[in-house]
């Protein structure tokens, strides 16, 4: 299975040709992280990471629903991608140098700037991570969080005991049962998992952010065309927000007079889509069917969702954040 898939990946056609041939994008997502990639009762996937997969499908097929999802554990994800089991990995994956250089992968951008945080029971009375000397800490295996927490405690000369589970659900259950004093993962993850605790209000997220976690979509190295498609699908969503184009008003751009920048984005000017190997209305389809980055953010993780994550650094660069996409021109 692994060998035959991998062979298709290297000897065969480009990823785009394969995706077109099979008629859908195979997307690696998490095993259930509300707000980012999560399946509802009837098996529909939603979330910020899921929207990226849908955007790619909209760009390639003009139909955002042509995606199939593979729920992957943190441990399986890179193997699944490099063996060709999935076409994109959009699973709150941190961009690090090792992963970029040693794993044969390419990060196509950042769709959420995160940082690792810690959650403790309020009853513990801790107000700072520096008070956690000797704590038992629960986390996931196969992630950067294990390394960050180790670095943080070493740097501050504190001892700790790490209990690392394979799946996020078991981490939450063990922390909930009291096996650990601390639950650590990306702060977005803490916000998302909090709802699964017996008493979400009896826990507090400590103020320290102990790492940089730029999360983004990943593709295999060696297929620049596919890499570009994924990268520019994300960029198109961010640029659309910056230009004020939403799923509601994108239709009007087809008839009304628009600025040259918008005209290039929605395919009225130039042949940017064809250069990617797609049709020129690729970005129009993304915005129409998935929405711009801001819409996606507010819908899945924003202030009006259970996660209540403020835009913070994820706001556009024009609004005090660092979300910045290169121009389409």
């Amino acid at each position, binding site marked *: 299975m692994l060998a035959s898939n991998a062979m298709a990946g290297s000897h065969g056609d480009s990823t785009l040709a394969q995706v077109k041939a099979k008629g859908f994008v195979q997307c690696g997502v998490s095993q259930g992280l509300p707000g980012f990639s999560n399946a509802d009762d009837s098996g529909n996937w939603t979330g910020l990471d899921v929207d990226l997969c849908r955007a790619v499908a909209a760009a390639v097929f003009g139909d955002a629903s042509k995606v199939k999802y593979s729920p992957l554990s943190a441990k399986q994800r890179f193997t699944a991608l490099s063996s060709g089991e999935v076409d994109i990995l959009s699973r709150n994956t941190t961009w690090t140098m090792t992963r970029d250089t040693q794993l044969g992968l390419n990060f196509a951008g950042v769709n959420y700037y995160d940082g690792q945080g810690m959650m403790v029971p309020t009853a513990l009375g801790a107000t700072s991570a520096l008070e956690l000397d000797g704590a038992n800490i629960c986390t996931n295996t196969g992630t950067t969080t*294990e390394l960050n927490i180790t670095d943080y405690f070493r740097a501050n000369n504190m001892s700790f005991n790490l209990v690392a589970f*394979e799946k996020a659900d078991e981490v939450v259950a063990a922390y909930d049962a*009291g096996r650990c004093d601390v639950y650590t993962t990306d702060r977005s993850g803490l916000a998302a998992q909090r709802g699964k605790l017996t008493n979400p209000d009896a826990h507090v997220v400590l103020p320290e952010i102990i790492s940089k976690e730029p999360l983004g979509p990943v593709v295999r190295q060696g297929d620049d065309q596919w890499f570009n498609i994924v990268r520019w699908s994300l960029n198109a969503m961010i640029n659309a927000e910056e230009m004020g184009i939403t799923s509601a008003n994108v239709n009007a751009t087809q008839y009304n007079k628009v600025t040259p920048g918008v005209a290039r984005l929605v395919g009225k000017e130039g042949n940017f889509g064809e250069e990617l190997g797609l049709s020129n209305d690729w970005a129009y389809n993304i915005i129409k069917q998935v929405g711009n980055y801001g819409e996606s953010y507010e819908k899945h993780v924003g202030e009006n969702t259970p996660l209540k994550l403020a835009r913070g650094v994820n706001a556009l660069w024009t609004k005090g954040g660092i979300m910045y996409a290169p121009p389409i021109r």
Partner: protein
Amino acid sequence: MNSDKSLLLKYLYDTRTRSIIFQVLLILSLVFGFWWIVDNTAVNLQAQNKSVGFGFLTQTAGFAISDTLGTWLFDYEVGTSTYLDVYFIGIANTFLVAFLGIIFATILGFTFGIMRLSQNFVFRAFSTVYIELTRNIPLLVQLFFWYFAVLRSLPNARGKVDIIPDVIGINIVGLYLPSAIPQDGFSLTMWAFAIAVVITFFMNRWATKRQQETGRIFPAFWAGLGLLIGLPLIVFLVSGSPLVVEYPEFKETGPILKRGFQKGAGMVLVPEMLAVWLSLSLYTAAFIAEIVRAGIMAVNKGQTEASLALGLKPNPILRLVIIPQAMRVIIPPLTSQYLNLTKNSSLAIAIAYPELVSVFAGTALNQVGKEIEMIFMMMSVYLTFSILTSIFMNWFNARVKLVER
């Protein structure tokens, strides 16, 4: 022309030639298949800009591992320990649960197997219910059940349940036991024990020989037990008790995080390990019980009747006549169960016990991304464990099998 053809046909229809042709074809396809896999792997790795090599083993590992036998044995320290250490820690932890699991499962399995054949209804019914319940529920489910049952039923890290006050205590962080730290001169006691083992061995041979020749019975078991305990004990006391026992320390005051059992005092068995041990043993014991029952039932009823006719009592009949004959039926499937238990220990990754699959093929693999090398190294460990178990059990089987005279 015609004769050429008939000669060819003659060769083709010759069974010997034909079997050689088929064997050559088989070998060729095997060699080609193997070459194809290796070449395909190499090409694909190259396409992904990945190299093959074991250089990563000397890199230092930047993550912490839960306190277990492995981290203690190999003195794991973040920043100085390498991925090779992580590998050994994984092996040690896997070996620990496999070894303890095999012992516990065997004892339980034999007990339940014999109980199931008991005349006593309560024993028989209990054993039947136990076996049907445990062997029909997937192991992973049992693993979660025991882990979360253990966790939910224990007091939290600031509390404890005393099993022996101030000596053994348990809470959600683990089972705390006293640890013994050998001092100078403790090696004398170890030597005394080794000498006692040797003496016991020869005494047993002498006792068997004498019984066969003269019929007089020497209480070899009790004598041996006395020797094995007595001799080291005397040496231990004479050499001035060179062993310091360190007890777990429990604090109830101070900052909340500092309360509870103190790190570094005594020995701790983490709940992850307890749950893995418990579920592996209980699960495998059900299968062993059925194997034992099959083995005992395979011994002809006439054997019991003949023994009774000779005037033997029920206990010696079981011990001297039935079990030795049942063993030859029991050993081969028992070996398979031991192998299963060892390999099933890899499920422990689900509940955070840092065994081989979890720390090496999990955490470490994600940091260095050398899938092929690391999976290969992991497979070699299971293969070695399994082959060693097989060799030992085959040797044991050869000893107990029926010798036809």
